């Protein structure tokens, strides 16, 4: 009996939480089908009396819609590549080798994680300008990559699970360390890489400040949404519609990534 109650709670809490996540989004979905005048004069939860698709049409046909999605994808892919390679290399070096300044290197990566980027932006901007990385996708992707130290730790955890004997036997057959890393370690990092993909996707998707600062010449999805806002005017129905469109796109991508990953797992076992 007691087990049953616990089992019930175990599922119920998750289901309630999933519902709680969806409730605040409901008015957004309802609002996206309302005309501008109805939107401001009706209660958030009352359904549209004359549902309209005009908000969606306006969002999807706006000039920058496709190019913004493309730019965001470029940014995310670049950032995933840089983060994955750099973080896993650091994790490999730190996890598998002993060396003189190891503790210092580890501390360095811990320390940088608690420097509040928001306030250092003026000096970061100067460095970006100095290195001519301003207004390049590379530059911003690098900035995104070095700010996520937590990923190095995920890779370390992952590498620790891979038996060091693999390294040793490969070493005896004459492989060099880079080959070991690339041929033996890297393919085993797939679970973490998937998390990096999702993590980067949500981070970059969310951030607008860095994108508006360092990519002034390119529109992205998160800066796109702001074309409907200004200090004195918020075009909420259009904003609602773009939110819904963006949710649909990202959830689709997420589901595809996961299905792909699960299929791979199955084919391996």
């Amino acid at each position: 009996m007691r087990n049953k109650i616990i089992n019930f709670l175990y599922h119920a809490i998750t289901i309630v939480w999933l519902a709680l996540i969806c409730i605040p989004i409901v008015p957004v979905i309802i609002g996206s089908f309302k005309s501008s005048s109805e939107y401001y004069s009706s209660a958030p939860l009352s359904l549209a009396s004359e549902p309209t698709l005009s908000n969606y049409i306006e969002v999807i046909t706006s000039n920058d819609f496709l190019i913004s999605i493309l730019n965001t994808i470029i940014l995310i892919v670049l950032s995933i590549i840089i983060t994955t390679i750099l973080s896993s290399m650091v994790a490999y070096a730190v996890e598998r080798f002993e060396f003189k300044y190891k503790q210092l290197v580890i501390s360095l990566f811990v320390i940088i994680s608690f420097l509040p980027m928001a306030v250092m932006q003026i000096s970061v901007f100067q460095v970006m300008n100095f290195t001519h990385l301003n207004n390049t996708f590379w530059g911003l992707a690098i900035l995104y990559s070095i700010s996520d130290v937590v990923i190095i730790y995920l890779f370390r955890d992952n590498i620790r699970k891979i038996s060091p004997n693999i390294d040793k036997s490969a070493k005896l057959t004459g492989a060099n360390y880079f080959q070991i890393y690339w041929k033996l370690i890297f393919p085993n990092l797939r679970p973490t890489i998937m998390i990096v993909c999702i993590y980067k996707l949500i981070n970059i998707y969310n951030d607008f400040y860095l994108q508006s600062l360092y990519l002034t010449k390119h529109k992205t999805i998160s800066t796109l949404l702001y074309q409907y806002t200004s200090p004195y005017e918020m075009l909420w129905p259009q904003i609602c519609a773009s939110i819904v469109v963006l949710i649909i796109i990202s959830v689709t991508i997420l589901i595809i990534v996961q299905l792909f990953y699960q299929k791979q797992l199955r084919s391996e076992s």
Partner: protein
Amino acid sequence: MKKLSGLLLLSLIIFAGCGTDTTTEDISGEITVVTSYTDAEDKFADVEAGFIEKYPEVTDIKWESTAGDYDEYITTRMTSGDYGDVLLVPFSLTRSLDQLPEFMESLGNEEELSKDWTFTDQAAYEGQTYAMPISLNSLGMMYNTEVFENAGASVPTSSEELYDACAAIEDNGQTCMYSNLNNLPMLWSGGVTSYGGEGYVDDMLAAGTAFEEGQPYRQILDLIYTMITSGYTEADPMTGDIMTSMQQLASGEVGFIIMGSQSLADAQAMAGSEETIKMAPFPVSFDGEQHMPLGPDELIGVSNKSDNIATSKAFVEYLVSSESGFAYSNGGFAPEVDGNKDAPENLAYQIEDYDTYRTIATADSETVAEFNQIGNDANMPSISTPITELIEVATNDGDYDQFIADLETRWEDAVAKNA
């Protein structure tokens, strides 16, 4: 034909006025304009088309903006030297005028410019003007005439009249004022001159106090406090939304909002009639008269790091003149001495019914610098800070007298520090 010659004449004035020695041949290529408008491309579409039509050598205008705080964004870019060819001048730079020459290109001698243009002193330093208003907008009560008529109230000209009108409006089951305090407390800083006159900075410095009975800051805080505690505002001033306030104003659920004339056309369109929504000055008289406050919406200038200064200057001149039509589409006037004869009718009230009044104090730059320093040291860079703090006192049964006394202490400590 008449209109055409008017335009022609006007453009001559602009060129003579701005005293640029550039000829049209130099005006070519591409420029980047940085603004706080995320929808700049649409907002300035007509301006861009008109400018390129006038100067066919110009290939393109690129628009850049931020979704975040504009001041933060542009000052970060300014430290690096890359901040576009034309830009809206950040608020912080207009507070430290001596820094203008470091970043901005002079548009001309201020005295010369002021023959044809107004508000040339807003961003001027040592006789040079560095930026011009993109449009001059009035600010005050945007009210629904029907709501006031139904309540039997006339447009208030003092706080007491306002409270009476509000009581009547609330009796009719409507909200008197939608305060928008969570979004737009800064609008009240444009109202300070209505309460204290154009010389309020000098007056406050001379008095050494800021929150004594009758001083402009105090009058504004008293008004907002009374409005909130009497229940004359929306139910929760923390969850307000600007578009909702305009929609409710238009539909007659709200009596008035404090708003700039930028939004007048929108509100009138929502109400479906120009007669329903009108603008009036803040409910106060200074020296026995009511004035319609008028001031720059934003200031625009040219970066001195630009490599296409001639085109950039021409663009600024074109944008701010009535020729571009931007000021009108922005619900305001072009900063021209003799311009604005062709202003749209729904805006004409600003010059017909009232003396216009500047929203920004006329004090010399040193005095303004001192005033700003005291404000910073007192931890209130503008009146929006005490207003934001006031919300907590007014909505949570705080001790208002104590609140005012604390503000006064903060101010006087800062005055003492800068003495």
